[in-house]
């Protein structure tokens, strides 16, 4: 019994030891970051699931409600892109979308940064939490914070 417990303990230590922290590190926050444009792109396939449609609906609602001025000025853009269509091949490759997903692309200091927002998938049943979470993220990007 002691041997079994010891083996389990060793396996756990081994498994934990093999893993490295899942820390997302991108460009640091800089006061000099000048955000030129933000793209909020929703990718989807020909056949969409319920959650895929909801994510598009909530994301579009968020940008239309809170960033109307930026949409009009062209500083922010929202698009829903069918990745199964040939004409969207380049933009799909640019973002590296692996399927239905929501991406935030930021043009800062002449460079392009992209990041998939996977957290939204946990909020498809809670519109308020979805909008709040996406707004917080977009505000961060607008302030030049790319973390």
């Amino acid at each position, binding site marked *: 019994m002691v041997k079994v417990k010891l083996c389990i303990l060793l396996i756990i230590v081994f*498994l934990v030891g*093999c893993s490295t922290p*899942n820390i997302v590190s991108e460009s640091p926050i800089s006061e000099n970051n000048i955000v030129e444009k933000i793209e909020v792109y929703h990718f989807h396939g020909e056949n969409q699931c319920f959650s895929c449609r909801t994510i598009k609906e909530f994301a579009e609602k968020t940008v239309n409600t809170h960033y109307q001025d930026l949409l009009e000025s062209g500083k922010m853009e929202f698009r829903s892109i069918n990745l199964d269509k040939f004409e969207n091949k380049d933009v799909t490759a640019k973002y590296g979308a692996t*399927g*239905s997903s929501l991406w935030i692309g930021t043009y800062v200091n002449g460079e392009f940064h992209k990041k998939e927002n996977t957290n939204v998938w*946990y909020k498809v049943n*809670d519109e308020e939490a979805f909008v709040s979470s996406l707004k917080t993220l977009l505000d961060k990007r607008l302030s030049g914070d790319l973390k």
Partner: protein
Amino acid sequence: MSFMAFMEMMGSSNIAIVAAFFIGLMTAISPCPLATNITAIAYVSKRINNSKHTLLVGFLYTLGRMFSYTLLASLIVWFGISSQSISLLLQKYGNHILGPLLLIIGVIMLDIIKLNFLKASNRLTKLKQKLANKGYMGSFLLGSIFALAFCPFSAVLFFGMLIPIAIKSGDGLIIPAVFAFATGLPVIIFSLILTVNPK
């Protein structure tokens, strides 16, 4: 804290193994894997009177899932194959292949349509018997095929959440294996329940 908020917190854990496990659990309850797991539970329950067989079939099904997920992850992490290409390919054609394949296997196993040329084939008769009776290899194959049935949400969980963690950790083996174990956990739990109380 709501259930989804808890799953999000655990799925975003700084410890890759913990994150992989909870992303796997999320996958287990998402539409496509849930449907395949229910099918697997039906398969596991086939010989309910043999508890050892039930448990082994449940574990082999999960092992099959583990095989496919680990294979995909290691191809991406260690061999640099584009996760975008694999993901889009499996989502586009995976279900198109899987659907007819399951129908054909079902027709052969159930003898719904009597096909004369099938009777003539000794090999096919043997294959039919294997699929229907053996169970062990069948459950492994079932797991490995079902794991490749990606629908939009399960593709997000695997390619959008798990693969980036595996790439960051440089681990194409343990992280996807833990993920796979969690995706097959409902089947293992069900087979354990059947083993403890088979009637």
